[in-house]
């Protein structure tokens, strides 16, 4: 068994940044919020709304924190590649660039969705979905379900990997003049945010498909 130390280190940096942000946002809470609190409330409010829309009121409250944490982790991970080198860390790279991170999160979403399905509908109704419309569709339904994990994780991985390849190659071809900042803006910040959101939304939808 081998460990990719770089990815683990980067993941811990992401977790550290998020924890720090969390502490700062709630340290001096007040009716008149400080800027950190405003940003924190903005994230929580919008992501809870997303969960509420997809999962109805009650379940939305239950899965809201998970959705919120998932988005913040993915977003921070995708932003990490934009950071310049800092002190003892020669280079930041997105943990999502390694297929293991998206695949792990995709599997997590898969298990949460299926556990939620069994819990909400009962095992009988949960299993019935797989033999619809006909019993012989079972293998295809199973493959379709597993393909969801593949598609959600490869989508994130492909986008982040593609972005960093393009940045690397174009920076090299243009001797790092002029173009790289624009590319970092587009692939790093813009595409990174969209893909983090898409991943979060798909996880929410997978849960909502299972519980309904």
């Amino acid at each position, binding site marked *: 068994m081998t460990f990719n130390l770089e990815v683990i280190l980067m993941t811990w940096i992401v977790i550290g940044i998020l924890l720090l942000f969390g502490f700062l946002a709630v340290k001096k809470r007040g009716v008149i919020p400080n800027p950190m609190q405003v940003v924190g409330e903005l994230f929580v409010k919008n992501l809870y709304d997303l969960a509420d829309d997809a999962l109805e009121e009650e379940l939305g409250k239950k899965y809201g924190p998970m959705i919120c944490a998932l988005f913040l982790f993915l977003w921070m991970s995708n932003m990490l590649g934009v950071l310049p080198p800092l002190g003892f860390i020669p280079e930041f790279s997105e943990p999502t660039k390694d297929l293991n991170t998206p695949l792990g999160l995709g599997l997590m979403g898969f298990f949460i969705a299926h556990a939620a399905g069994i819990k909400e509908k009962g095992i009988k109704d949960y299993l019935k979905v797989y033999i619809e419309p006909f019993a012989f569709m079972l293998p295809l339904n199973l493959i379709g379900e597993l393909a969801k994990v593949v598609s959600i994780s490869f989508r994130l991985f*492909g986008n982040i990997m593609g972005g960093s390849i393009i940045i690397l190659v174009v920076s090299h071809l243009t001797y790092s003049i002029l173009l790289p900042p624009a590319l970092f803006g587009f692939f790093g910040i813009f595409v990174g945010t969209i893909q983090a959101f898409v991943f979060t*939304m798909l996880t929410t939808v997978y849960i909502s498909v299972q519980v309904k």
Partner: protein
Amino acid sequence: MNDITMWAEVAAFVGGGLAMGFGAIGAAVGEGYAAASANAAISRNPEVSGEVFKTMLVGQAVAESAAIFALVVAMLLVFANVGENASWMTVTVFLSSGLCMGLGAIGSGVGSGFPAGAACEGTARQPAMGGRLVTNMLIGSAVCQTPAIFALVVSFILMFTNFSDRPVNPTWAAILGAGLASGLGAIGSGLGGGLVAQASCEGVARKPEAAGTLTNVMLLGQAVTQTTAIYGMLVSFILMFKAFDPAGTTLAPAMALLSAGICMGIGAIGPGVGEGFAAQSAVGWIARNENATAELTRTMLVGQAVAESTGIYALVVALVLIFVV
């Protein structure tokens, strides 16, 4: 200079030509569509011609990016340094990475022209929503580029992976199959994703209050539309990284791998476009009747899942060709 080195150089030039040649098709069509819509928009509401012109240029710039990916790959191929230890795998690597990027840029280029056009017409219709329309268009066309980015990833991995320790016979076909699976597979999804983004831009102009919902459902629809392109990328990854047994001089195992790539590539085109239609209509009708968002989204997802089943058949056949036959 031996015979194979010469063929590798030939393949690098041919691959570069194919990459840029095919890669230019989509972006040009998409940009033309955007310009045509901009003309229609300006004739309808000449006062905002400046705004429409700006929107058109921004949209065309994003549509162009697929062709720029192809340009980068073509440049790398044309100036590729063919080493002395070239083999038949080097020949197929150059051909395959060129084909992969060229074909992969077609769908995304055409597709991202659609939201650009719809945003131009929307700006003429609802000038106050200009900023929101441009944002929505940018998000939509950025997601449209995803299949082209997948093709780019595969094409780069093909170029920079060292295949020299693999047996030449089945691997040359696996390399070619990998390029075709991602390249062809990206066509449908790129086009389909564009249709969804178009409907969403139209919807924002039609019903500005629903802009948030429209963007969310668009992203969902586009994400599901890309699924078959992702199957294509999955098959490419398996073909590139699986170690195959040497096959001597028999041709059957090699052909099975090549067909696996072709099967997944072509099989992904239809579901990509079809799922795009499903999501296009769902987004379009949400703009007309926002109250039915939940029902429309559910119908869209179920419809897309059924449309995707043919893509899953292609995936199953491709996996059988790789692992069983």
